[in-house]
């Protein structure tokens, strides 16, 4: 598949949050404010690209040659946890500004299902190296786009007057549904 097409599809039409529902917990809980959403989105994009690539390499050069595919899930999640720790230490040491920007989100990311989900999609769809890198990056950007957009929309909700029982999670789900419709509208152009 064309890399550019893959990038477009993973950002818009097959958006990881809005069509595969991955990373929904932070999507509902911390999307109240655009600034926080942006920080989380950046951290997710960064970690997602790194972990997808790392898991691709481990899967291809360690697990498959040794016939250990049944350990894939365990190895993937351990790699993600370890890599997040390494990134955290590295940022703390060499890039304090970046660490201040998204350091607090890093521990949360280990259990973000979008990160594991991307590694699993790479494995299930048998992507090659560059496709993996592009797909990891595109999915991260797509997730960031979705969470920032919902953060902005929720801010506007302050001025609205939804029914009393339509509190935060309910109205956010409806908002996300309308947004998902808009994203899926592009399906004719490229889809996975």
């Amino acid at each position, binding site marked *: 598949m064309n890399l550019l097409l893959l990038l477009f599809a993973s950002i818009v039409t097959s958006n990881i949050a*809005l*069509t*595969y*529902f*991955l*990373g*929904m*917990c932070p999507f*509902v*809980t911390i999307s109240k404010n655009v600034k926080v959403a942006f920080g989380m989105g950046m951290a997710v994009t960064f970690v997602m690209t790194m972990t997808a690539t790392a898991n691709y390499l481990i899967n291809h050069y360690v697990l498959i040659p040794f016939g250990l595919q*049944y*350990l*894939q*899930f*365990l190895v993937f*999640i*351990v790699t993600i*946890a370890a890599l997040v720790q390494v990134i955290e230490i590295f940022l703390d040491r060499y890039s304090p500004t970046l660490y201040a920007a998204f350091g607090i989100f890093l521990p949360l990311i280990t*259990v*973000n*299902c979008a990160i*594991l*989900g991307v590694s*699993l*999609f790479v494995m*299930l769809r048998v992507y090659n190296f560059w496709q993996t890198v592009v797909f990891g990056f595109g999915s991260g950007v797509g997730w960031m786009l979705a969470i920032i957009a919902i953060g902005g929309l929720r801010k506007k909700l302050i001025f609205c007057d939804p*029914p009393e*029982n*339509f*509190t935060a*999670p*309910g*109205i*956010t*789900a*409806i908002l*996300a*549904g*309308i947004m*998902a*419709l808009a994203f*899926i509208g592009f399906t004719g152009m490229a889809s996975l």
Partner: protein
Amino acid sequence: MAETRGLKVPKKGYRLFRSKDWNVFIEGLWHNNPIFGMVLGLCSALAVTNLMLNALVMSLSVTVVLLVNSIIISSIKHLIPDRVRMIAYMFIISSLVIAVDLVLKVFLPDISRALGPYVALIITNCIIMGRAESFAINNSVKLAISDALGVGMGYGLSLMMLAFFRELAGFGTLFGFRVIPETVTPAALLSIPPGAFFALGTYILVITTIRKRGAK
């Protein structure tokens, strides 16, 4: 026992319904319902509920993993050092999920393919980690079983409710059997991803309303 605080134990009725286990079970099923109450574990709830069969297999898998994980954690809680307990949970959960995934691949290959990565994603499902951390680690095996069954069935019930609505309106079928005649055009919107969000939002509204009525 933070979990059952404020719950009245009824004086009349069968013994089972007066026991603490029953209260913990109901607490998990209704008050701590993972999907509509705590809004946890949404990924799988939204993704697999376009067909009832997928939702049923998914909820059984989650319940099994949750139950076995709770039993293991609550029985070895004295052996797990406090500082590495998260890693311990993760290893136990991952191993259980690998087992469930292999069972599904062998006995239900079609459904396993349809569920795709969502079986593996049980590992990062907040419900399982959440119940281990907030309940199983502090309670006896017996109570942990009640809690896991309650939360698991609450999750399953929520998934089945979502899937019932989505499959009936989106395809006009239930478990693959035609209920609404083919001459009626189904509301295909509900079978695609945005429909999942709409169905979830509507259900949360209904459940919150019922809860508030009950609290009055």
